[in-house]
């Protein structure tokens, strides 16, 4: 486990030294500024505009990092053969994968938190009298981070047994479908064959439910997020990530490096 932590910290260092990350942070700040301007021209709905725009920006930037860097976590190491020297040392393959996952999730935590603070400061700027419900912004940012952790796990899984391009496509595809899991469950079963009903139901429970992480409307209207939802999403992410990473480890542990 200690070795996984060493790998994770190095992955974090790589991300920090990667200029793309700074550019994305800069982009987020630009988005914040844009939201402030939009808030000023939208009389009465400043908070809604700022929170919605800000959270969308945080989510979008996080997704770009999670998918593109997530897919490269293993693929880049295999392509450049940087993991040869590492895996010849007393490092188990699961420790390597867990370290890479942990490093990027840590990077996303720092990145998302920084952007979340930026968003909150923007909110304070347009709304001098804060209320307790405004803390929902932080819960929404936390949920975005949980969602990103799930996306990283999926990207890592696909990059363990397919090409980076396909891994990007698969991860993006699952993310998009995962946004509509509830719709999949609510399909009009009456007009479908029993086989198809079973298939869509099963699929809807197998796919990650990203819709549960969306509390943007609650945050935009300062409505408190129930504690049970926070606990549920945290537990869901932990269990889902564990399952996905276990499959990734199984795939990667038998893989021959070229």
């Amino acid at each position, binding site marked *: 486990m200690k070795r996984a932590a060493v790998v994770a910290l190095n992955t974090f260092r790589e991300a920090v030294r990667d200029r793309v990350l700074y550019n994305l942070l800069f982009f987020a700040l630009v988005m914040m500024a844009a939201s402030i301007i939009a808030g000023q021209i939208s009389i009465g709905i400043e908070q809604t505009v700022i929170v919605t725009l800000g959270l969308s920006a945080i989510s979008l930037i996080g997704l770009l990092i999670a998918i593109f860097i997530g897919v490269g976590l293993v693929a880049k190491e295999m392509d450049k*053969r940087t993991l040869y020297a590492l895996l010849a040392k*007393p490092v188990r393959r699961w420790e390597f994968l867990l370290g890479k996952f942990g490093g990027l999730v840590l990077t996303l935590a720092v990145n998302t938190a920084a952007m979340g603070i930026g968003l909150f400061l923007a909110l304070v700027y347009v709304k001098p009298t804060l209320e307790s419900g405004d803390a929902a912004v932080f819960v929404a940012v936390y949920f975005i981070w949980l969602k990103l952790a799930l996306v990283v796990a999926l990207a890592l899984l696909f990059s363990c047994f397919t090409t980076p391009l396909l891994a990007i496509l698969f991860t993006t595809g699952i993310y998009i479908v995962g946004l509509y899991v509830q719709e999949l469950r609510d399909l009009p079963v009456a007009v479908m064959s029993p086989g198809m009903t079973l298939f869509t139901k099963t699929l809807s429970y197998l796919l990650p439910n990203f819709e549960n992480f969306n509390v943007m409307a609650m945050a935009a209207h300062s409505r408190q997020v129930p504690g049970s939802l926070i606990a549920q999403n945290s537990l869901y992410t932990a269990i889902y990530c564990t399952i996905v990473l276990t499959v990734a480890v199984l795939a990667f542990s038998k893989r021959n490096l070229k």
Partner: protein
Amino acid sequence: MTALAIETENLTKEYPHGFLNLKKKTSLESLNMQVETGEVFGFIGPNGAGKSTAIKLLMRLIFPTSGSARILGKPISDIEMHRDIGYLPEQPYFYDYLTASELLDYFARIHDVAAFDRKERVQRMLKKVGLETAGKIQLRKYSKGMLQRVGMAQAILHDPKVVILDEPMSGLDPVGRREVRDIILELKREGRTVMFSTHILSDAEMLCDRVGVIVGGKLRGIGAPEQLVDVKTQGMEILFELTGQTSSPLLAKATRTGDRYRLQVPEAELYGAIEKLRAAGAKILSVAQVRATLEEFFMNLVESDRAQAAAVEVSGK
């Protein structure tokens, strides 16, 4: 009996290829090899012979189709055994956003080197490979030769008992090669086992207690370099100089380089040849024994392998 550092038993690696991966290409075929503790073992063979495949199998970077291998008496799947192994990959590439010091510190942490020891050890290794002034430079600015040196440093950073180097001389200038040779000899003096693959046969002859010659995925010979080749004198070589115009039947058989000629004759005909050359006005510069080199042994194997492959191809048609 000397303890074995590395032993392989029928180690085989096949790669599926072709439509639906139905065909199999054998990269390494039933490798049975033993490397004794404390020896320098050279693994020589042409490109695609299976040297790197064998080394990657030992390093568990790829997995054998069949067979087994043990290092220091433990199966290669034993992860803790890898604490005692140092490995330099072929054409190494490391995290280029790190400096050499940071990379070595990272690997030292992986090896659980204590914090108080890490900094001193990293500096010592950088000095050993001649990079003490380049330790703070990011690896993306390193030349191929410098990366090779960093690779050597990370391989021996943790005082391994067995050091496995895949083409350690590759990409190095003569000074770098000399330094790597010195490091290998130092490791041997320290009682460590060194196994390295190389194309440069003179290095293998110079450094190795024993060599294994691998061609076409098969081990074709193993033993001390002088055992592998015919140590008997194959003839005599006369080096002579000829300035004036003269004619002698022997000159037609000689190889000319400027004013100098080299002539190979059977040992029994040496004195007669010298007399004839002197009579023709030649100035004898030296006379030396001609011995088969490891290179000739190696090339013979490669040629015979190619001939066999061609025969198989012809019979297949």
